[in-house]
């Protein structure tokens, strides 16, 4: 199975991102004159950890309100909500609430990116938090929440995150809940915005046409935020206690799912490369434990089992997931957990060339879209380090030895917390 010693990629042969600073905001540029589009990320330290427990959903409601804020486009004075305006201008704007930051992403044709970023800056600098805008934002978030509830993996991740992030409220549901969102009024949202939408810790990360990136739009965007910084809300989330470390949720799904979470090293760690390789090893083992058909073509079922290494989160974590609908759910789940148990106990030998190559291939494949490239460079630069998310990671993977993988497995794969998402029984609530 490990017969081939892969030729490991030493370098991505792509230009490294460049870093600068504008008014205290880190600006990352990845000029790419082959890109038809330009993508711009803005990270603001206004994520989940800025919320108190009672403010669950406030970070998302603030960000969504910015997307709903009317902006003026063209010279006609026409106003449209930002998200609609972006689409009508040939682009898009979206956001993602993370543990530490909210990340806005603006993408559009290179010719119109300047105007697109300008309307985003308009909404960011003068957001509307009136009742009408909040109503529209709540409806939009309500739809996202309802969709999330239909996806067992996301349900499991929310359950696990809630107990994993014990030093702050970074494990609260990304978009809040319908109940929590209903209680906020304009003053709450405005207060959150005023406190947290600051330059301190902010990062602008852009990929695309060199001329656009050098045009000053990134600096102007950075300058929209007022000076100052905010701090995470100190919270002590009680750790899950008890022997079983299992949580169960019922949803309207066809088959049970199991999702398990382990602590993992962050991307700056010496163990980063080894965990990327270990994740590939686990993907293979999990597929065999879950009896995913071993065929050449890509199949739907192979997406029903795997691992997600959240190396950008603080603390970082590794999640494995298995769709129990692939076969007998109880034996699939027990085989999976047995595999995880074994991997940190047996001595790993032989060539890891194939797994290292797969780790490199997967890492590269997840860094091809503009949004991924902007996000990764921004995340890497956020703590003052290099924005070179590619060459360092590939080199780290190339240097991994079997002993490294063994050490990382023993260090991190001890005692997972498990979420089981099971079909709701008929007639139950």
């Amino acid at each position, binding site marked *: 199975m490990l017969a*081939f010693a*892969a*030729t490991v*990629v030493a*370098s*991505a*042969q*792509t*230009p490294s991102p460049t870093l600068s600073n504008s008014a205290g905001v880190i600006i990352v540029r*990845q000029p*790419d*004159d*082959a*890109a*038809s*589009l330009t993508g711009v990320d803005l990270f603001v330290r206004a994520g989940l950890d800025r919320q108190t427990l009672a403010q669950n959903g406030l970070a998302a409601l603030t960000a969504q309100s910015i997307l709903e804020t009317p902006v003026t*486009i*063209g010279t*006609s004075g*026409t106003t449209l909500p930002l998200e*609609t305006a972006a*689409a*009508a*201008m*040939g*682009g898009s704007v979206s956001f993602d609430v993370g543990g530490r930051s909210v990340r806005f992403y603006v*993408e*559009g*044709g*290179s*010719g*119109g990116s300047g*105007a697109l970023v300008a309307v985003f800056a308009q909404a960011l600098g003068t957001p509307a938090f009136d009742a009408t805008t909040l109503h529209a934002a709540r*409806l939009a978030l309500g*739809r996202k929440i309802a969709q999330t509830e*239909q996806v067992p993996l996301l349900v499991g991740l929310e359950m696990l995150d809630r107990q994993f992030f014990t030093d702050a409220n970074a494990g609260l549901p990304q978009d809040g809940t319908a109940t929590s969102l209903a209680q906020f009024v304009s003053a709450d949202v405005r207060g959150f915005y005023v406190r947290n939408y600051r330059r301190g810790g902010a990062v602008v990360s852009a990929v695309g*046409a060199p001329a656009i990136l050098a045009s000053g739009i990134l600096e102007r965007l950075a300058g929209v935020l007022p000076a100052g910084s905010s701090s995470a809300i100190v919270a002590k989330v009680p750790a899950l206690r008890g022997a079983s470390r299992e949580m169960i949720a019922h949803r309207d799904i066809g088959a049970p799912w199991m999702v398990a979470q382990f602590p993992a090293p962050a991307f700056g760690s010496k163990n980063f490369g080894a965990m990327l390789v270990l994740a590939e090893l686990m993907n293979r083992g999990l597929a065999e434990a879950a009896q995913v*058909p071993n*065929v*050449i*073509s*890509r*199949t*739907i*079922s192979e997406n029903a089992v795997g691992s997600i290494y959240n190396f950008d989160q603080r603390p970082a974590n590794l999640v494995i997931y298995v769709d129990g609908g692939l076969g007998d759910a109880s034996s699939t789940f027990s085989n999976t957990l047995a595999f995880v148990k074994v991997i940190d106990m047996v001595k790993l030998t032989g060539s890891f*060339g*194939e797994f290292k*190559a*797969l*780790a490199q*291939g*997967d890492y*590269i*494949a997840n*860094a*091809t*879209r*503009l949004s991924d*490239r902007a996000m990764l460079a921004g995340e890497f630069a956020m703590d003052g380090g290099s924005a070179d998310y*590619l060459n360092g990671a590939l080199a780290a993977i190339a240097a991994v030895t079997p002993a490294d993988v063994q050490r990382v497995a023993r260090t991190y794969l001890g005692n997972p917390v498990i979420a089981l998402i099971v079909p709701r029984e008929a007639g139950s609530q």
Partner: protein
Amino acid sequence: MRAGSFVLAFALLASVTNVLPSRATNEAVSQGALAHGGAYLVERDPGVAEAAVELWFRAPSDGYDASTPGIAQLAAVAVAAVPLAAGRSLVDFLQAVGGRFSVNVYPDMVAVSATVPASAARRTIATMTAAYFAPTVSDDSLKTAQQDAAVLGIERKYSAALALHDLAFQQLFAGGPAHQSPLPESDAQITAVSRGAVDAFAKRAFRASNALLAVAGNVEASAIDAVTDGTLGTMDSPYDSPLASSPQDISQNGSVDGIGLAWAGPPIVDEKAATAMDFINDYLFRDDSGTLQRTLDAAGSSTALSGQFVTLHDPGVMIVTISGPNADATRTGVLAAIASLNRPMDAATFAAAQQAFVYHCLSDAQTPQAAADNLGWYGTEGNAAYAPGIPDGTYVRDALALDPDYVAGIARTYLKAPVVVRLVTATAKGSAS
């Protein structure tokens, strides 16, 4: 209302070139003939660390005598699984370099695709062309292909969108490969095909001269020199399928419930009309932003709705599939929305939808694999220059040349009464009764 709309339309039309990329096509895509037969297209993007390498062949999925449904799938996988001169198969090689492999068979084409770290692109081109331009099939590799086809066949049967797609094509076309599912439909079909037949199909279909090599990503055009196999010749003519003269609606038992709607559309050579069909699809059905999708989302519906204009040599096909709760009501909504497009859209709505459409086109084509898919598909269907996503290519120009009257005319011409197909599970039948 009208005045406001007009002002908005003016503002948007004035900035219609916002989405136009700045590069010239001849800088973006290299093309030419391979030294030993076949053609190539290379779209270079030095900003990414990945490359996609794809081989596309014109071939009927059900064999040259139309008697072996799925033979193209079996051949494409069997060739990838057989050990090459170096002792390992193409699939083994790709795993060893951290790549991913896939086979996609359409009624009239076969595509084999690899995404690899860019540093392995040249070796991938060499290995993939060595495997396919001098194909062999062994008993073991055929067994692998049969196992592969069996798994895919089950998944296709339980995928509402794919099962409805197959049934709609079966009704829309009177014969030819489009009348059949591109995958074998039963274990009997899978095992009935002999190794000799698969080998013969592979040797005929996968000739270098019948191939288009599509490469995208961080790879120099000079990597094409890595192709050392092949023989000169000409590419087959497109394998078109004849339309049924009066296609019939059908309702039949299936493993899933759902409704499919299909219309014959313009050929690929009618670029502007085909682009108008894509525009209509984008406006109504695109995930997240399509007007009908948004209506379903706003209602909290869990109905699955998907639409696609399949650009083929001749004719293209617009297909819509609906599954989940309230499928009949959704079908009514789909037909009403399409009927409303018989009248020109108001200028403001159209201008916004057009900008969004062009953006979606460019956004969807931004990964090496998506770019290579477009080059391969459109090149093999007979119009490579029209591949979406090529900066300054004809597709974007056609999209920007659309206007409300033209789109309404295309809707009136092509989107009349659709063929309606329905799959019903035994459970649903029982419930209904």
